[in-house]
Structures are given as C-alpha cells and as structure tokens.
C-alpha cells in the first residue's frame, strides 16, 4: 500500500518531470532546417579544396607536387609543365598542367594545405559534394579554381 507520503512524492516528481518537458518546449530548437537554411561551420572547417589565384589573376600553384607527396591517401595528382614566359600561368618557372583531387579518396585531413609552400591549395568550408557517378568525383583544375558555392554560413569565432 502506498502511503500518503509516496503519493505526494510521486506527484512532486511528476510535476518536476513535466517542468523539464515544458521548459524544453519554450527553448529554441537546436536543429537546423538544412538544406533550406544554411548550416554554420567554423572558419577553420576543412571542406572541399580550392586552388587560389593572385590578385592579378595568376595561379598560385607552381606545380611542385609537395601536396601530392604529403597526401596520406594519394588523392592528389599533379602534373607540372614549364611556364611560357610570354604568357605565364603562374609566377614561378612551372605551373600545374594537371591538378586533380580524387574526392573518393580524400579524407579532408588538411595535410596538403599545410604542405603547400605558396598557399595555393586551401580547404574551403564547403562540404556538400554529392555527385551522380564515381568518375565525376575527381575534380580537375578548372573546377578547383572556382570558389565553391554552398549553403554555408561561417560561424563567428565563438
């Protein structure tokens, strides 16, 4: 037989529990309606690669393949060629004739970015990379030179 004390205690506990529930009703949900709303990432977020250019339009990449050597998964392929002095692609002696990133292998570790001596390859905040077939998961230089547009907001540093 439950005594009066138990009944009171039980009622209090139920009221407490309902309190927790009601409080949660009043708070803003933490879920984001992605992709209708942009999702927020931090500035350092490691997403899709981008090859940068200088302000004068020259490509930064000098085809040194240090990023390829640093890549733990073998996702990058660089084939360098000599610059034509009349019409240079990059300010160095050489430039990357082919630059491919295989996003089926890449693990977004950021080691390529760290290895690059001229800060040519950087990881942007863009992470949505859906493609229809395997072969289009290899991004070539032209795609990588384009800044990615994605439904992303950059969070302020805390």
């Amino acid at each position, binding site marked *: 037989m439950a005594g009066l004390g138990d009944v009171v205690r039980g009622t209090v506990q139920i009221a407490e529990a309902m309190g927790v529930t009601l409080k949660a009703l009043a708070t803003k949900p933490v879920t984001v309606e992605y992709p209708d709303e942009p999702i927020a990432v931090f500035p*350092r977020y490691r997403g899709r690669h981008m090859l940068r250019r200088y302000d004068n339009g020259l490509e930064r990449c000098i085809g040194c393949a240090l990023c390829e050597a*640093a890549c*733990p998964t*073998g996702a990058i392929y660089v084939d360098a060629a000599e610059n034509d002095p009349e019409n240079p692609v990059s300010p160095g002696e050489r430039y990357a004739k082919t630059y*491919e990133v295989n996003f089926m292998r890449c*693990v977004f*570790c950021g*080691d390529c970015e760290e290895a690059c001596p001229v800060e040519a390859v950087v990881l942007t905040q863009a992470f949505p990379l859906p493609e229809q077939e395997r072969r289009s998961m290899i991004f070539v230089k032209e795609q990588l030179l384009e800044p990615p547009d994605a439904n992303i907001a950059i969070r302020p540093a805390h």
Partner: protein
Amino acid sequence: MSEPTLDAALPYSDLLPGAVLAVEKNIEGESLVVAPDQLVAVAEQLRDHEGFDLLSNLTAVDYLGFPGRSAADRFEIVYHFYSTTRGGGPKVLKARLPETNPALPTLMSVYPGADLQEREAYDLYGIRFLGHPSLRRILLWDGFNGHPMRKDWQEAYFEAESKPFKSRHPVGHHIWAEDRNPWGSNVNYPAGFDPETWSQPVTLRPLERHSGSNGVSGALKTERIVVNMGPQHPSTHGVFRMIVELDGETVTALEPEMGYLHRNHEKIGERNTYLMNMPYTDRLDYISSMSNNLAYAIAVEKLLGEAYKPTERAEYLRVIMAELTRIVNHLFSVGTFFNDLGAFFTPLLYAVRERELILDLFESVSGSRMMCNYMRFGGVVADLPAGWLETCHHLVHERLPAKLDELERYLIGNEIVKQRCIGVGYLSAADALALSCTGPQLRGSGVPYDIRRAEPYSIYDRFDFDVVSFDGCDVYSRFLVRMEEMRQSVRILQQALKQLPEGPIQAAKALGAYTVRPPVGDVYGRIESPKGELGFYLVSNGAGNPWRYRVRPPSYINLNALAPMVVGNKVADAVIILGAIDIVLGEVDR
C-alpha cells in the same frame, strides 16, 4: 640493435638457465630476448614473483630484410608486461622465430588475455601459438590467402612500398582499381579452399562442447539453439557479431566474431610516412580521435628523442583536448548504454547535447568535429582561435558540472537501472587483470589502475585528480566509473585552463618537419585513452616510414572478457554487457 651481454650477467641465469638469450638496450630501456620454449616459465616468474600482472601488448614483427636479421630470426614476438600494483614501465620480452614454420607456446595458460592478440598475430603473420585452444583467423576470413602483415605479402592494387604511389597515375590520370583488378580475378584462395563448398562454421569452440539436446527434463524436451546476434544488429554498436548459444533465454556459450570493418590499418601504416599516419589514427576509435592522436604522437616522440619534446603550451593543449575527449567518449558511451538498456534515445540525447558543444570546440580549433588530426610531433598543429578559451572556460566551470549533476540525478539512482545493472556481467578483479582488461572495465572491477597516475605521460603528473574505481565488478560499476571520470576530467580541465601558458605550440625542430626519420629502434608508447590502454608499438629502421606500426586497441582486448561475463546471463543482458565494454568497431577491427 642488440648488444650481447656476458652469459653470467643475464637475468634469470640462476633460476631459469638458458631462458634469456640476450638483453637488448633500446630507446626506453631494455628488453629480454627469451628462448621460445622457456617463454611460459619466464612469464610465470614475472607474474608470480615480480608482480607483472597485466599482459598489456602482444604482437609480432616481421624482420624480413632488416639489417642484421636473417631467416633464422625473421619473426619476433614482443610482449609488454606491466604491474598494476607498482605502476611504472614495462617488462619487455621478445621471442625470435625462424622463417620456416614459426611457432611458440601460447601464453594463455599464464595470461588468458593473450587469446585475442595471439589469434591476431596468427591471422596477420601466420605465427602458430602451440596449445592455443582455438587458433583461427579473427580479423580476416577463412578464404583469405596468406598472412598480410608479412613483408613479402603485397596487396594487389598497392604494389609500391611507400607513398606516394607513383604507379597510381602512369598515364597521366587516375587508373581505376576496377580496371586494374577486374572483379572475379581479384581474389586468391588458399590451397584447399573452395568457395563453392565452404560454409561459415557456426559450431565454434565453446559451442561445440555444449551443443546438442538439453536432455529431457520432466515431460518437456528442450534444445539449445545457436543464434547470430549481429553483424546487423543495433545493439552491437557497429558490425560486430556475437554467436550465442541459448538455452531458453539464458546464454550458455558465446563467441565474438569480428573483422567486418578490417582494413589492415597496420599495413597501411607501414606504407605511410610517420606524419601521414596521424589522420589515420583518427579513424581508429572515431569517438575519441584526439586521444588517438595523442597516443601516436607520444610514441613517435619517444622514438625521435629530445628535440621533438613538445613545448609547454602544446603539452597543456594536448591535455585539454585529451580530457575533453574523455568527456565526449564517456557521454556517448553512457548515452548508448542507456539505449542498450531500453531507455531509447532520451538519455542519449541529453548526453550528446553536451558532446556537441565539445565537438564545436574541436571544430573551431582543428577544423573537424570528429576527425581532428590535431596533434603533430613536437606539438599541435594550430593554436586556439580567439574566443575559444572563454567558451571552454564557461563549459568547464559552469555548464558541464551542472549538466553532469543533472545526468547523475536522472540516471544513477534510477531504480530500473539499478535492477537491470547491479550484479550483471560480473568480472572479478583477478579475472579482469588476467584477461588484460584496461580502462573503465578494469577500474569497474575495483583495480585502481590508471596510466595517467601509474606511468604519467605528457604532463599528467602536474594535475590533481582521483583515480576512480568501484568494486561492484558489474556493469553498474563500469557505468559509475565513467560518470565519475567525467568529473575528474572536468577537474583536470579546470586546472589545465588555469595554468595554460603562452608560447609556441610546436618544438622549434619540429616546425615544417614533414618527413621525420627516427633512429633505428623500437618503442612502445601508451596512454590512458577513454576506453583503456591505447598503445602504439613502433619499430623504425631509420627510414621515413615505420617498419612496424602496431596499435594496441583497448576495446578489442577488452573483448577478451565478453564471453566470461555474458555466459549465464540472459540475452538482454548480453546487450548491456557489451554496451558497458564500450567498443568502437573502427578500433576493434582496424
């Protein structure tokens, strides 16, 4: 590597003459080269008279073509023993085996916990452990041809010794694996193996003994049945299979089956440079990647020597990250444990909400929420962004203590939880040690062994914290250990945030050191990861990539205790006992 000493000076020459063949000096001490036939006697001596009660790490190394090695001592089995009562460093035994028919006696009679690690060495190296009761493949399947960790075994697609693989782009673009290795011709079977007639044996060792009719009890004839739990089962926390034999609802025998997520992490590690392995370690125990980074960095730094000693600020940052990781892991583990208990998802979401806040901190400092790749040899990769410390300070001083109180209030005293947990999954302290358990599983059996205290690494000797242990020896104790350890982590974090000095985050020598070439030698570095003792055993031949890269995965080895804990309980309890071990299949299967 080896410095032969005079015979009379060899240890144990009086007790066990001829047992120790040589004493090898290496980077962090010495190791004894023992005669394989005397190994069990030496191990008994260590356990019974010298207090080395924990066989922590057991692994094999293939020295094919290593300078100074020949076919007569191609394989080496390495054992690391620790004392949980004294703490301190390891006793290292090595046994050398010839190329043809490498075999040595099993240590299971002395340390039953050698079971899974010996099976792994057999699977990956083909070393036979004589007397092992079920020396079968464990990570790979029975139709696998050869022993992949041997140096002369080459995987079809990755024919080069080290990265970058030039053969990937011979004609100027990617070559697809399926073009090179068409399906149907990419598998070799071992001699005598026919995939058509082969079927997975379900009558495994403990099951064989028991299976069959239960006899007639009264008028009712009952029978035991064998049931597969997993690999596709929500309670196994991944692709893990338990083959259980049931008598009614009671488990009478259990055999764990694993390897579904096996990718031979260790072989990949041998082809990578030291630094390239860092992002791979993230993927071992993917809940606590920062801890994995730390353990690996510590092991490599031991190998590299003083020049790569992390700076003060880096040491603090590492401790902060490692302790945040411990909280993340325990929150997740406690949350999923309640899922297993049947409190579906509500407690988990309470726990994961706090975890998200910590992952935010990880993302803002390292760029990724789970695959952090944050540590480097001699330091860390990036300093804290603006505002990080304030957020962390708020979390550690206000939010987390309050939320831990809340979790505790909701969960610990709950009557149903107590009824389900107390006394379930009994594992005595002696058994836990004998089965090489570490981490919360060991401390939940009342053995207060924490590497942060027993053999402090990094700067853990500067912090004031308690080693948590509960002696209920059941899943409830393991759960309590995790809850209390989060509080201790918060304590460490509060101290570390207060003491965090300014300064560089990477040792001067380590800056921009992409390819490190450590001196020849071997080293075992270990930390108290949230799941137990996470160790890395590295052998260097002076090159840029490790000769041997071995992970001592805590949750894999803790699985040694699964069958002893489960047998005799109900099926539903098997689920929570497994949940309380806290396995992550990325680490178990490697």
